[in-house]
């Protein structure tokens, strides 16, 4: 079985920045827009190298989404950058009408998602963005797990036709997936093979699940860990195939339980193969100020929370 380890940590937003720079070099239709957060979104290298294809929008996210839709009409592939909160809830109607309903090839790139934004507190820690975006018809929703996967996902989005939401974050996080990996939108990645339980994890929680898997292995529990980097379209076949083998499920995400990955997996199971499921997620509350790790602990998103959920769900089989 593959063991996942790391020697380096980096923020996933830097993976986005690196991916965007690579796209600039390889695809002249790629343009970037940013709402006064160039440093936070790591868009500085793209701006420096391709100033004529970079648009500073100021603190005006609604306009940014509309501009991007217009540029897409002109054959460009716009990548918008701001915090996840301002990429979704703040501009939901603009995305709904001008991008999703209008089928515009706009890539909405969102950093500082979830609790791991840390000290800025609940105003900025959006935990509803996956739900908001996955509800929109035509929208693809991607939440990669580390620097390398975020870079690969960013690059893959330029070849994908249609509206997409790319979610990443602020904290330094283990890099445990391969460099220069091929990123297949909509295709779940089975990281470990197991027989007792399937863990479906997304974003930062994939690493938490890797650590949980090691703890569970010591307890003699065999985990099938599946990285759901694409929440929509959901890889239903991969989910059903794994659950047919393991018979129970834990989902793990840095998001509200309502509307997140767990919701999507539960719906899939309920419709096709009702099975016990536990969800590791934020349970209908806002976050608060604190360090990322303090917040992950307080809101129940640690490896031990996943371990406990696994033991609970196995007992329900």
């Amino acid at each position: 079985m593959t063991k996942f380890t790391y020697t380096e940590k980096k923020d996933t937003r830097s993976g986005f920045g690196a991916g965007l720079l690579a796209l600039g070099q390889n695809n002249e239709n790629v343009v970037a827009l940013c709402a006064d957060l160039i440093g936070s979104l790591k868009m500085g290298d793209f701006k420096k190298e391709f100033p004529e294809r970079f648009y500073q929008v100021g603190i005006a996210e609604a306009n940014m989404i509309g501009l991007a839709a217009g540029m897409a009409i002109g054959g460009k592939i716009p990548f918008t950058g701001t915090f996840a909160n301002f990429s979704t809830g703040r501009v939901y109607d603009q995305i709904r009408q001008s991008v999703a309903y209008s089928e515009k090839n706009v890539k909405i790139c969102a950093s500082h998602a979830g609790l791991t934004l840390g000290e800025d507190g609940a105003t900025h820690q959006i935990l509803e963005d996956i739900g908001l975006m996955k509800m929109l018809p035509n929208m693809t929703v991607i939440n990669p797990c580390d620097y390398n996967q975020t870079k690969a996902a960013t690059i893959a989005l330029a070849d994908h036709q249609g509206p997409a939401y790319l979610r990443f974050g602020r904290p330094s996080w283990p890099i445990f997936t391969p460099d220069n990996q091929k990123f297949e939108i909509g295709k779940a990645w089975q990281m470990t093979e197991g027989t007792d339980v399937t863990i479906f994890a997304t974003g930062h929680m994939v690493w938490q699940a890797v650590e949980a898997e090691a703890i569970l292995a010591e307890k003699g529990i065999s985990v099938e860990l599946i990285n759901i980097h694409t929440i929509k379209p959901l890889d239903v076949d991969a989910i059903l195939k794994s659950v047919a083998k393991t018979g129970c499920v834990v989902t793990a995400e840095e998001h509200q339980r309502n509307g997140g990955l767990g919701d999507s997996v539960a719906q899939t199971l309920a419709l096709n193969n009702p099975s016990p499921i536990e969800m590791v997620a934020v349970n209908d509350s806002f976050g608060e100020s604190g360090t990322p790790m303090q917040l992950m602990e307080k809101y129940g998103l640690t490896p031990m929370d996943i371990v406990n959920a696994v033991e609970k769900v196995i007992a329900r089989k």
Partner: protein
Amino acid sequence: MNTPDISELKKITSQVRRDIVRMVHAVQSGHPGASLGCAEYFVSMYFHLMKHDKNFNLQGNGEDLFFLSNGHISPVWYSVLARSGYFEVSELATFRKLNSRLQGHPATEEDLPGIRIASGSLGQGLSAAIGAAQAKKLDNDDRFVYVLMGDGELQEGQVWEAAMYAAHHNVDNVIASVDFNGQQIDGPTAEVMDLKDLKAKWQAFGWEVVESNGNDVSDLINTIENAQKLKGKGKPILNLMRTEMGQGIDFMVGTHKWHGVAPNDEQLASALSQLEETLGDY
């Protein structure tokens, strides 16, 4: 520029107004007021001012692009698109009906030729137009991007985000028009949410402002042709276009009451009696 055939444009306008009231009457829903008020504008744009191809191409390289931000006045746009040859005029009979390409508010999902983006939720069209204009600049395409907004729509904050942006980025290949009829659903704009001095507002945001009578084809064409000459000066252009809501029909003109109300059979007959059938009803 070719000399406009004003009498021909007026004839088309009359037919467009007939189309509007007949479409709205047929489904007893839709927005006749500002559709009627903007008939001269749409006819001038599609039959004289814009370089455009009825064999519709979404990207429109080498063409002028048009965006309708106040999407509720779809009847006038649909009529003019059909009369310009984008689709059969008979399709106007499907307006707002199930399985139609002519949605209540313009949409792209059904691939109706002429429509580049959905609109209806107000305040979004100017941003899209500016984005499309910047794409044209990247491609060294020297054509214009036109956009129409309602005056009530200017109460949406996004419009002013876009206004600030276009001036900052010198997007001078956009000619935005405001349908300045002074009316909105709940009443006169001065009572609902006073727009105050719109010319000064747009100028303060860094736009070049021209003013026109939107119900006078000659004045409108002159104004926009002069506005076209302002391209290259680094400022986005706003055409503040005075119109009358309900223009062309005596009992509808000049009031917000016909913003979103359909005429009954008797009212339709009265309206049609005031509008010459010049191109044949659909």
